[in-house]
Every structure is written in C-alpha cells, then in structure tokens.
C-alpha cells in the first residue's frame, strides 16, 4: 500500500477527488491536443501500460474491500470516458487533417476542362441524312449511280432527246459528245429500272453538276431523287408522300402547294411550294414577296420513260420527285449565301 494512502474508510472522498482530478486534467489536456500526435501522447499518458489510469487500476488492492467495487467501477467509468473522448477527438482531428489536405489539393474549377472537341458534319450532309432518314422510314430504299454519266441516261432515256429545248433547262458539263457530268440524279431512275422490276420505291441522293456559277448557282450541288413504281400509284399518292416529307423535314405544319410544271420525264409534272418559313406567307425577300418557296419538282413517271426502261406503261404507274439539298439546308438554317457551303470555313462548319 502506498505510504501516503489514508485509511480507506476515511480516504473514500479523497480517492473520488483524485480520480475526478485525473478526469479533469484529461479533459483539459484533450482540449489542448491539436494534432494526432498530441492525442497519441495523451492516450499513452492515461491509458498506456504505464499510464495513470492503468496505475490506478493496479492500486485496486490498496483499497478496502468494501470500497473496492465502487472504486473499480469509478475507475472503469473514467477509463471508458477517456477512451471514448480520445476516439472522438481522434476522429475530429483526422477530419480536420483530411480537410486541410483536400484544401491543399484544390483545383481552379474556373480553368477550362480538357476534351477533344468533336468535329462537325457538313450542313449539306447533315440535312441529307435527315432527308434520307425520313424517306427510309417511309419505306424507300437507297440507290446510287455514277456522277459521270452517259448522255443516254442523263437525257435520252428521260425523254430529253438531242435538240430538245428542255436541254436548255440545264447547262451541262461535257466530257465528250456522249459522256457528261450528270445534271440531275434522275438517271439513277433509269439505271435502277433497267435492273429491277416493280414494285420499286427508292431515293437516290448525290452530287450533280451544272455549268453555271453565280450568286445563286454553284457548278456542283446535291440532289435527292425519289421514285415509286407499282401497279396502282397515283398523283394523289405523290401528294401524300411529299406532304409528309415536307412537314417532317421542316418540322412544322407548313402549307404545301402543288402547281403544274414541266419536266420531260414526268407527266403530269408539278413544282412543290411550301409556305415561306421565314415570313409565314406574308411575303419577304426570301420568297420574293410571293409567300411561297419552291422546294421540289415532281410528277408521274412519263410512260415514255417506262417504255425506254422496258416497263409496260399500261401495267405500271409511278411517281418521281427531286429536290435540291442546298436549298432545303439554306431554308432550315437561314443561310443566305450558297457559296458558304463550298468555302469550307471552319467557323461556318463548326456551327453544325
């Protein structure tokens, strides 16, 4: 027994005070512990093998038997208290330390992110894709034909013989007397009809060429041709298909107008106008004040064309249509200069 220890029965209050004092000292020291290191020192000081509380527990034998249970309980209570408080403090300090670390790793979120900027699809091809998707969804296939074409397919087989005034409608680039750059995608009609039997429904997108260059003409441009042939295709069907198309491509319930026109390879022929999507039909620069904009040429396949392709014109009827992709693109995106398409300025291209 410790020599200073007072007789047990008298010392109960002192023991209590003593342990209370340990607890108070601990609380004080814990509050001052600013780091995990400090905390570890406190833990060793109180709870270590040679720590203050451990020593107290070891002194149990010096306490009178009657006081022993109370003493033991008290010391244990304080021990648990110190353990819990230390743990809590540790968590707290760890959090502070992590916060400091995270703060030191801070990135300037106002700096731009790093990425590979995606490029762009040329506006003509973007619209071409939309056109194709619409017609494919309506059951049309895709066909192609050569851009350098024989006079026969480009003209003769489309009921445009040599010395026909309709050849004036198109200025042609010639390679020689019989070979030319196709002036429209219509020759694909003939090439497909030569190979396949009805029913037929397809579109033929592609580049076409005309010997003409000014503000509103480029020597190369894009067309989409369409053909549907079966035993019972009518002009009213043509109206149905094209009205659906026009409303879907312009994503608007635009008015559509069919008016008579002339193409040697269709009869009856039509020009298809839409209500001007810029002014809404009241008249503006784009529609030249008429309120209408021409977007398609169309008509019933001329029986002469069927004959030349080897189809029986009495057995089959069909319709054909053609449109300029540049024109539709200009209308969709309010592009006012045709030449922008072929200048390929990145500031223009990147907008699509």
């Amino acid at each position: 027994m410790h020599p200073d220890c007072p007789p047990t029965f008298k010392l109960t209050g002192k023991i209590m005070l003593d342990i209370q004092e340990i607890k108070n000292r601990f609380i004080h020291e814990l509050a001052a512990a600013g780091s995990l290191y400090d905390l570890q020192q406190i833990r060793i000081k109180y709870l270590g093998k040679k720590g203050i509380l451990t020593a107290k527990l070891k002194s149990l034998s010096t306490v009178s038997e009657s006081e022993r249970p109370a003493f033991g309980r008290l010391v244990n209570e304080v021990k648990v208290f110190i353990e819990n408080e230390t743990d809590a403090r540790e968590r707290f300090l760890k959090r502070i330390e992590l916060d400091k670390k995270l703060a030191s790793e801070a990135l300037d979120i106002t700096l731009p992110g790093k990425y590979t900027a995606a490029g762009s699809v040329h506006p003509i091809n973007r619209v071409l894709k939309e056109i194709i998707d619409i017609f494919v969804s309506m059951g049309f296939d895709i066909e192609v034909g050569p851009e350098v074409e024989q006079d026969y397919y480009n003209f003769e087989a489309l009921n445009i013989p040599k010395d026909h005034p309709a050849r004036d409608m198109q200025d042609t680039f010639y390679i020689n007397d019989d070979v030319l750059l196709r002036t429209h995608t219509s020759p694909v009609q003939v090439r497909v009809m030569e190979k396949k039997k009805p029913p037929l429904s397809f579109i033929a997108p592609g580049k076409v060429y005309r010997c003409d260059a000014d503000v509103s003409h480029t020597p190369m441009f894009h067309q989409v041709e369409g053909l549907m042939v079966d035993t019972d295709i009518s002009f009213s069907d043509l109206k149905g298909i094209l009205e659906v198309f026009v409303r879907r491509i312009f994503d608007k319930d635009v008015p559509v107008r069919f008016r008579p026109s002339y193409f040697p390879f269709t009869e009856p022929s039509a020009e298809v106008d839409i209500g001007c999507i810029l002014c809404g039909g009241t008249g503006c620069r784009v529609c030249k004040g008429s309120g209408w904009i021409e977007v398609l040429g169309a008509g019933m396949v001329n029986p002469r064309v069927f004959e030349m392709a080897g189809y029986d014109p009495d057995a089959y009827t069909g319709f054909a249509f053609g449109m300029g992709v540049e024109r539709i693109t200009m209308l969709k995106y309010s592009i006012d200069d045709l030449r922008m398409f072929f200048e390929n300025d990145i500031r223009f291209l990147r907008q699509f």
Partner: protein
Amino acid sequence: MRIPIEWLREFLDFDLSAGEVSMKLTMVGLEVEASEEIDGDTVLEVNVTPNRPDCLSIIGIARELAALLDLPLKMPESDIGEEGGPCEVNVGIIDDDLCQRYAGRAIIGVKTADSPDWIKKRIEKCGMRPINNIVDITNYMLLEMGHPLHAFDMDTLNARAIRVARASAGSKIKTLDGVDRDLSENALLIWDSARPVAIAGVMGGADTEVSGKTKNVFLESAYFYPSSIRRTSRTLGLKTEASYRFERGTDIEGLVKALDRAAGLIARITGGTVSKRVDAYPRPYDSKKIKARYQKINRTLGTALSEDEMTGIMKRLGFGVEKAADCFFATAPSFRTDVKNEIDIVEEIARFHGYDRIPVTVPRVPVSGGRKSKHYSYMSLIKESLRRSGFSEVVNYSFMNYSMLDLLNISQDDPRRKTVVLRNPLNVEESHLRTTITPSLIRNLVHNVSMGIRDVRLFETARVFTASGEPLPHEVHHLGAIYLRDKSPVLWKEDAPDLYTVKGALEAVIKELKIEDVRFQPSSEMFLHKGKSSDIYLSGKKAGYIGVLHPDITEALSLKLSKPEVVMLETDLDMLMSLIPDAMVYTPIPRYPYIERDIAMIVDESLRAGDVIDLIRNYKSDLIEEAVIFDSYKGKNIPDGMKSLAFNIRYRAKDRTLTDLEIESVHRDIVETLVKRTGGALRGA
C-alpha cells in the same frame, strides 16, 4: 414572256386584278415569276415551260385564261383588201423535211418610218426595241400571236424568188446584226435565186433587210422543223425571239392569221397595198385522234372525275372531243403541238381540274420497309468516328487544277494523272475531275489559315474519278483528311506528335469498322516528309498514305506560320469498306485470369516497334492473348543511336487458370527470339 395586262384585256373581258391573274396563271402551270408597273399598267413576267410554245404570246396567255375562266376569247380580225393582186414573189420549198409550210404576202408601196406610239409602247413593255414601223409590226405580231414573221425588202430579192433549202458547202451570210456567218450544211436557209437571204427561223440577212429606202416588202410566215432550228441556232450560238419559238414548235395552221394580220397592219400604217397570199404547204396538217380512257385518267390522278368533267375541260381547251364507251377521242388544236398521247390529256385534265383539288392519299404498297445500303451505313460510321476525333467535314467541288499534281510532285505515270477532262470547264482551276482529294484539302487549309484559324482538322469523303478506257471513268470513294495545329501556347499539353493524332483518328475508324488487315509501310509519296510518312496497305494493296506534308510544299503554300507541320491522309474508302466483316460475331468473355509480363529492350533506333510487335504476335502460342507496346523512348540513359522499347504481353488460356510455370518457358523463348531477331538487348539485363 412579258405580258402587259392591258394588252391581255384586248382579247378577254375579265374581272380580275393583276394579282388574281398571276395566281390563276401560276396555278395552271404558267408561273408568274415577277410583275412590274409600267405607265399604270402591270406587266407580268410569265415563265413559260418549253412544252408550251403556244403560250409565248399575248393571245396564247389570253386563250389559256379564257379556258380557265370559261370566257369567250375575242380573236383579232384582219382586214386585207388584197388590192395588190397576185404576189410577185415565187416561193419554192426544196427541203420539205425541214420546212412544212411557207406562206407570204407582198405589201406594195410601203413607207418606212417610226411606228405609232401605241405599237412602240407595247413592244417596249414586252422588252423589245422599236426599229421601224415594218420591223416593229412583225415584232408586234410575234408578241401578240406568237408567230415569228420576217420582212424582206422585196426589191433586193434576186428574181423575186424564195427557195427554202439547206446550206451548201461554204455558204455564208451577213446577218442583220452585221456579223458574217459561215453556215454548216445542215442549216436551213432562205435563198433567193442567187444567194442565201436569211437563216431560216433564226435571223434575216443584212442585204435584204427592210430599210429607209424600202418600197415593197415581202412578208414571210413559215413553219420550220423545231429541232433543225435548234441545231442551227446552237451551232451558230445565235438565239433570237424567232428561233426560241420555232425550236419549241409553232402553229402551222395559225401562221396565216399572223401573216394576214401583220400584212393588214403594215398596209394600214405605212399606206401600202397587200398582195394575194402565196402558200407552199405540201402536206397539210392532219391532227390525229388521241384515245383517253376515263378509268386510266382517274387512276393515274387518284381522282373520281366524271366523264363530263373530263371532256368538258378538253372542250374548253379547244380540243375536239368524241365520246366512246369507256374512253373519249381528243383532237388537239394545231397550236397544241405538245399534246400527242393519252398522258398529255391526263395532264390537261389535272391542270384544269386543279392540282389542289386532287386528294392526298398514302400509296398502297407492299410492306417491305426502307433499307439503308451497307455503303450508306458504313459511310455514316466512318464520318461519325472522324467527327468524334475532332475533324470537321468539308464538301469540295469534284474539280481540280491539273497543275496541283505538279506541285505535289506526282510522277507522270501515276494513276492520278489519268484525269477526266471537262470539255467546257468554267475555268482552268476547275477543268479536271479530281483523282485525289488532297489538292482540295490543301486549298481548304490555306483558306482557313488565311482567316487566322490555327487549329485545322478537316476531312472529306467523296468520289474521285480516274479515266478507265471505258466510256465512263472509275468512280471510287476516297477519304481525305488534313490536320494542322499551330504550336501556339495551349493550357493542356498534347504530347503525341501530330502524325500520331491523325493516325489515331484513322485507327479509330478502322477499329469502329472492325477491319483487320491494315499495315503501314514507308511511303513513296514525293510530297510527304520522308521520315514522317507511311503508305497505307489494305490486304497487302496500297490504298493511300498518311504523313506530314513535305516542307518544300508547305513553304510553297506561304501559310505565314513558323515551321507549320501539316499532316495529311488519303485512302481508298471502297477498298477499306470491302474489308469490313459482313456480320458481327460475339466473342465469349474469357473466364480465367491472365498473366502479364513486360519486356523492355534497347534496340537500334531505326528498328520499327510495329515489326517487333509483329514478332510477338506471330509467335506460335495459343497462350498469347495480346501484345502491346507501352513505351518508346530515346534520350537519357539510352546510348546514342539506340532506343528503348517496352512491351506488355498478356497470357491467357481459354479453359484453365494459367500458372506462372506454364508461361515461363513460352515467355523466355519469346524474349530470346526478340533478342536474336532484333539484335537488341534486354534492358536492365
């Protein structure tokens, strides 16, 4: 065709504004493109399609409008006294395949002078220039009736003879416009007894022109074969109001009305007397009956028109109609040369019934569903892949300047020299069809750099054209790309050399398409940097190139950048697409773990990593799953002339977990092979 409303009212009483007339005409196929106010009158600009020469006149438009409004047409009267007696001019058609009718009248004792104001005003409103009263009256009649007339000074005609015949070898004529013209033997001419006096249907001769001295006039009104006139006009490059109408087709019956009315007007205004008519008309016009089936018409249009509605329209249009059981027979008036077949009748009925009144239906077709071609789908994948790699798509003309091939040092026997040449190019820069996309992309680069753009990534897919010896050239799809990134400061560094950025974009495409057999071999292209270029081989065939543009060429482009490094790429897309596997087949996911081993070697710097990788990949062992290169390094700690390459090999078995022991011998053997074959040394060994 310019149509003054005031003139139109002379032949038709209608109660419509100019705007309403425009709308009516447009909706019946005579599109009014513009209108203009002149002296309180409205002049309509009507776009007459090539099939409707009968509408190239005031009467023609009035006639169409009359039919549309169901109003009577007031045809102008001609009052000719024929006091001039028999016509002194003797007319003979020699080549009657090219001229089916030639009529004329002499007007004796005329006095040329300025036309009266009302004639001048009207022809000016229609865009013609007044000349003198006689010429103006022929023009007036051309505008009013649509039939071209020609006035000769009768006294200049040798022997007062008119012969209609083809040119003979070496025929020449000075035309009214003062130009001496050589005539091809196909051209139809009007001759007097000694010489050509006019190019039939195109332009008169200067020697027989009506002038201030003219006392007697011979007025011609003829029908010339359309395609002959067109050929002559095209050959001569001479297009006139007359040739424009003759080549489209004129009214062989109505031409005498125009003749008579003009002769009457000349006599009235210039004070002459009119002779009797000469009229060579070897085979009079016979209009054939066209059978039109009611059911066919309705089925073609999708309409349910009654028989009377159909025949009613045709009658209003001036056709003779004979009804039969399930069809009718229509006889076209002589001015409607365009109506020959049943389908032409269908068109007339559709026009006059009104396109807007034809129902809107959905075609009844077998359900097959639209198919995108494989080519189209692949093309979309390729473009999308390049777009993701940061490239923007361009579209260029299919033309090129042949001299670009010289700039690119393309050798004389290179297939890219087999160009297709335009006979009538717009300019020399656009005179050949492209055999390569590269020149267009270089032009795009120059444009964008000149606009101050410093980050250029562009691609194009397009057909190129190579002469084939066949009538049509080979059309092959190519992919081209160009890349320039100026070394201006950037925040986040990109460490790979630019060549690899472009190669990476190409590899992304190849991966996307699941193509296997692509190889890169040293390039033979003279326009590329020797050390930074490669030819692309697909299935062992050269399909294109990738590389940095040769500094000499970059310099020639004067980009005004310091040491610009332009990376370019061009490859045959059709070849590339032919290697795409038809169907995607699922590969089972491996179930057993892999073992990895790295190999680091020091080798001669000229050794290509790809060749070393190939050695590993070609090593015969089922256990090698994958081999990749993960480091290529020159510099510190590596001897001069050498480089360090590091590879990672992944071993795996399909049916069991591999043990280190199992791969030990394989790996050791691979390492030994590499050392032996490359002459290199293991690093750190």
